[in-house]
């Protein structure tokens, strides 16, 4: 996938160090400061993540879908993180740990049947509009995520925008973990969001499998 090929995601060295500092600032501005998903900031009105630039050490993926449901319903589903593994193919479980900041441990599938745990906390929340989270200090993977719910025109429901930024420490272990966390991150974010839409709009997740025991392999075949 592009993001790993470009090499600015997990590479080490002094040049990357500078990029890291700049990148963290750019990402901070992007994830925290912008109040509206359609706000541009680089000369046009397009969402920031569509810019032809990178965010330093972070890879940023994002996607918007329109879901024909009211935003309160979608927000409520997402706010209960334990619901998310149903739509996120590579997330095995998300367990809230009961802290005051909405802390949760995400168990991510890794190659060879292993799993990796990441602890996150909620950094910003606006009722029925926005949930932002990040990995806690010292995590193996440095990740920020944000989902935003905005009314779509007329009776079209809600525009849901998911943005995920991630970085992993250098070295073989870090790379392996990063890969496990998000194999083809952009594709995966897109698939996950599509499954969320399916579940909300139809009450089920589409599969072309003929038998129950083929559902998972059918999904992973193309993931």
């Amino acid at each position, binding site marked *: 996938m592009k993001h790993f090929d470009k090499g600015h995601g997990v590479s080490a060295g002094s040049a990357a160090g500078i990029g890291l500092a700049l990148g963290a600032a750019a990402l901070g501005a992007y994830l925290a400061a912008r109040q509206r998903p359609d706000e541009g900031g680089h000369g046009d009105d397009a969402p920031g993540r569509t810019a032809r630039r990178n965010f330093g050490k972070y890879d940023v993926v994002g996607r918007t879908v329109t879901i024909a449901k009211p935003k309160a319903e979608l927000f409520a589903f997402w706010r209960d993180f334990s619901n998310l593994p149903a739509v996120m*193919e590579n997330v095995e479980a998300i367990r809230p740990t009961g802290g005051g900041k909405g802390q949760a441990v995400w168990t991510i599938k890794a190659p060879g049947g292993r799993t990796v745990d990441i602890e996150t906390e909620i950094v910003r929340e606006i009722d029925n509009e926005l949930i932002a989270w990040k990995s806690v200090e010292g995590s193996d993977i440095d990740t920020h995520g944000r989902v935003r719910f905005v009314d779509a025109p007329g009776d079209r429901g809600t525009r849901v925008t998911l943005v995920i930024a991630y970085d992993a420490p250098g070295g073989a272990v870090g790379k392996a973990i990063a890969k496990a966390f998000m194999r083809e991150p952009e594709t995966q974010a897109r698939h996950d969001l599509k499954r969320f839409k399916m579940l909300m709009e139809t009450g089920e997740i*589409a599969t072309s499998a003929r*038998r129950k025991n083929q559902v998972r392999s059918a*999904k992973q075949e*193309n*993931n």
Partner: protein
Amino acid sequence: MRALTFHGTKDVRVDTVDDPEIINPRDAIIKVTSTAICGSDLHLYDGVIPGLKHGDILGHEFMGEVVDTGSASTLKKGQRVVVPFTISCGGCFHCKVQQYSACENSNPAEKQDMSATLYGHPMAGLFGYSHMTGGYSGGQAEYVRVPFSDVGPIVVPDHMDDDKVLFLSDILPTGWMAAENADIQPDDTVAVWGCGPVGLFAIQSALVMGAAKVIAIDHYPHRLELARKLGAEVINFRETDVRDALMEMSGGIGVDAVIDAVGMESHGFAIDNVFDVVKQKVGIGADRASALKQAILSVRFGGKISIPGVYGGMTDKFPLGALMEKGIQLRSGQTHVQKYLEPLLALIENGTLDTTFLISHRLPLEDAAHGYKQFKEQQDSWTKVVLKPGMAA
């Protein structure tokens, strides 16, 4: 169960495969009583549609009896249903505006990438077609798992035979929508390229919609004869200069509307078509579009073009200048089958539409591979093949 499966270009076989089972709450399982081979199945057979895999079950025109239902299905065991070839959820934006074939939720998320790359947007799920459209097991089988069974299938009355209602699954609504997309006005002269099943139903639909004259174009005498019986005037393109003839037959104005019911494997002698054939054979993948090119040149200024014919990729030497300069409007798309089921069932029931005249062969499912071969090679006499899983082989 037994099912017709794909094994490569011009290699389909009836194999024994796993029976389907209920997976999602809105599913139903249908025991197939009749299933047809479609012209677009021949595109799969010829290997010009990407995204097929070894062992895929083909077939998207089918009907049968409900034998099992999920907890959220509205069907009942024992009901006879015709199943649309388009799988539609009923709840997304496109389904809500009745653009069912653009359903956003029926193609599994992990199957959407190829068509999203090719077309800019992912396609909806279709039965028995490509993995671009979900890779759903098709209807040329004893049993089919039907997702969203509360939205798609239509229950048909017992007094109507399978042969009368089977084509509600695809080709009848496809022909009807083709005529609707041609925006036919009462005094219009309409030209239809291709007298295969979709073309024949488009001709019939155009006449029901009040076209003053329908001109059918093909080179198979038997198919032209079927078109003539429906009330069309006919042109054999092997014997007649089509553009010249259409100008004369429309009083020198040009035809008001044209329907391309041929699609990507068009025959023709034009030099660009020869190049297109070569490119398709060597896998560069250009669609042969000679019928469409001729249609664009034949339609009058301000005229209307409807394309029910299947295209999958790209074409070149396309007369874009004629399209623009003549102010032509063009409509196309996979059929929004669910939208047409009830009105068309009513038109069959009251005798306005004849749906059985084009069936040339009825075969047991076991003979399906033979049916494909003949339908491909004997296009004049094998106009439409219906497979009957219950028929003794």
